[in-house]
């Protein structure tokens, strides 16, 4: 099989997740309303209450809220995979004439793409609220969001394949949602958390910190210049490493460990 056949298969596998978009209409409407509330009400309230040096906390918060959405949309992909396991659809996909590597990457990309598409309305709100008019900046934001969503969805799907239980997954997701999002620079600038040493170091190694600050560097460079979790180069290196690790681990998992048969 040529590389083109593999890419073609990858695109088709990725389409599997994207085509499920319509079942989420209600969920998306809820998420979207909640996001509007966050950005248009809570964000303003909080920004009026706190001040972190001379940082424009409102703009900082808006990007953070978007990252939180992107994160939870990607985590939803883990639920999808558990559900598919229960319905035997993973068995079906494992039987298709597609290389396991292509299947793994295709699902991660598809999961990322659909998480990204689910978050797209929110991204547009962010662009509007922040007044971003430059097309390159908007495209860079979109692309970065898509890449982050793919790594996160890849991790969520891999975890789901290992747990194979919606109960266990729900618990883990609840914990990771509150912990990972809190212990990061999603809502708190790194300068502000440096007071608590443990918190500071956890936030520093949390991929979400790097993702959200990377988004900020693209969206609101004038606000966060010099106050991100690390330098731009370091963040890019970290995030690339994270994406590669995420993909490699899901490849190994799917290749070596995963087989069908969710209790049947």
């Amino acid at each position, binding site marked *: *099989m040529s590389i083109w056949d593999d890419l073609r*298969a990858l695109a*088709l*596998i990725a*389409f*599997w997740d994207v*085509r*499920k978009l*319509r*079942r989420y209409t209600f969920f998306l409407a809820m998420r979207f309303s909640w996001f509007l509330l966050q950005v248009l009400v809570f964000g303003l309230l909080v920004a009026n209450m706190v001040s972190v040096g001379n940082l424009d906390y409102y703009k900082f918060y808006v990007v953070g809220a978007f990252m939180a959405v992107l994160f939870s949309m990607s985590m939803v992909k883990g639920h999808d995979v558990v559900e*598919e396991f229960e*319905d*035997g*659809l993973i*068995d*079906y996909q*494992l*039987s*298709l*004439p*597609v*290389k*396991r590597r292509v299947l793994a990457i295709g699902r991660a990309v598809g999961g990322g793409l659909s998480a990204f598409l689910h978050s797209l309305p929110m991204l547009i709100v962010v662009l509007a609220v922040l007044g971003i008019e430059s097309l390159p900046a908007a495209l860079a934001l979109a692309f970065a969001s898509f890449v982050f969503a793919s790594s996160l969805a890849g991790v969520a799907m891999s975890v789901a394949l290992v747990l194979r239980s919606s109960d266990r997954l729900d618990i883990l997701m609840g914990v990771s949602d509150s912990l990972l999002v809190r212990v990061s620079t999603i809502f708190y600038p790194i300068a502000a958390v440096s007071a608590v040493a443990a918190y500071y170091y956890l936030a520093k190694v949390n991929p979400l910190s790097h993702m959200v600050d990377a988004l900020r560097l693209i969206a609101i460079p004038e606000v966060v210049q010099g106050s991100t979790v690390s330098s731009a180069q370091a963040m890019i290196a970290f995030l690339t490493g994270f994406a590669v690790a995420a993909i490699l681990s899901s490849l190994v998992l799917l290749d070596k460990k995963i*087989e*069908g*048969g969710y209790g049947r």
Partner: protein
Amino acid sequence: MGAAVRVRGLVKKFGNFTAVNGLTFDIEEGEIFGLLGPNGSGKSTTLLIIATVYKPTAGDVEVYGHSVTKRPDEVRKLVGIAFQDPKALWVDNPYELLVWHAMVVGYGLLDARRAVREIMEELEIWEHRGKLFSELSGGTRKKVEIAKLFLQKPKVSIFDEPTAQLDVTTKHRVWEMIRALKDEGRTVIVATNDMTEAERLSDRVGIIYKGSLRALGSPAELKDRIPAGDVLELRVDGALGEHVISALARALGTEKLNVSNGTLKAYVNRGEEKAAIAIETLSRLGVRVRSISIKEPTLDDVFFYFTGAQLGEGK
């Protein structure tokens, strides 16, 4: 023709439970192979291992020389499976699902649409193309599932109880479609509980019971392996004397004879040959045969003999 699939010492355990317990057999290229066994005997598990969905605990399967443990990516290019339980999301609509499947197995979009329409019309599910999967009847779901394989036409097609929920007319149509795959030179494996299906379809059947192979051969061979499985029924003119009966017993090589109301029943192997011998013997002794019939054992008998019978008798 060589073996398309070689199963060697195949074992599959789920925790402590052994679902497949050391299977070894070949499936020849171009044959329809029936895998027969009672519920829970390990049919689906075996098929899922051949399709690389499950990994063997021990042993191996080779498909055209490619091992399912070492080269599963290669195996998957050659094998396709229609699952026992149809696989779809409840929000799927059959048409989209089948077009997606067709494209994944290599069709271009336009060809996929055309082929899906053809196969859906052939299986009489075209009218259901736009429904949600959750709205479909059991039989329709099953048709969507097997349609995947008729689109895919892999070198080795695996059907897990393909007609389990289908009505009689559809059953016959599906059998024809499966035979057509064989006529195109493909190898077909069919797991089934349905003796008619196994008998009509299979060139050879393997009977498994509790994960082990109990019998392997063509339906005719297996029937012959049941001791004295054929029944010869003879109606003759006049009474049958002791000497006639014992001469007949000797000629037919069986002790199992009984006579009632002018009908003689003899339990033999290879009924057709024995019928000729019986007629010859009787006419030599001056007894006129009015009618003769041979009742062959059904595959049901075979199935009971190799599974049920051994349950009780522990043979």
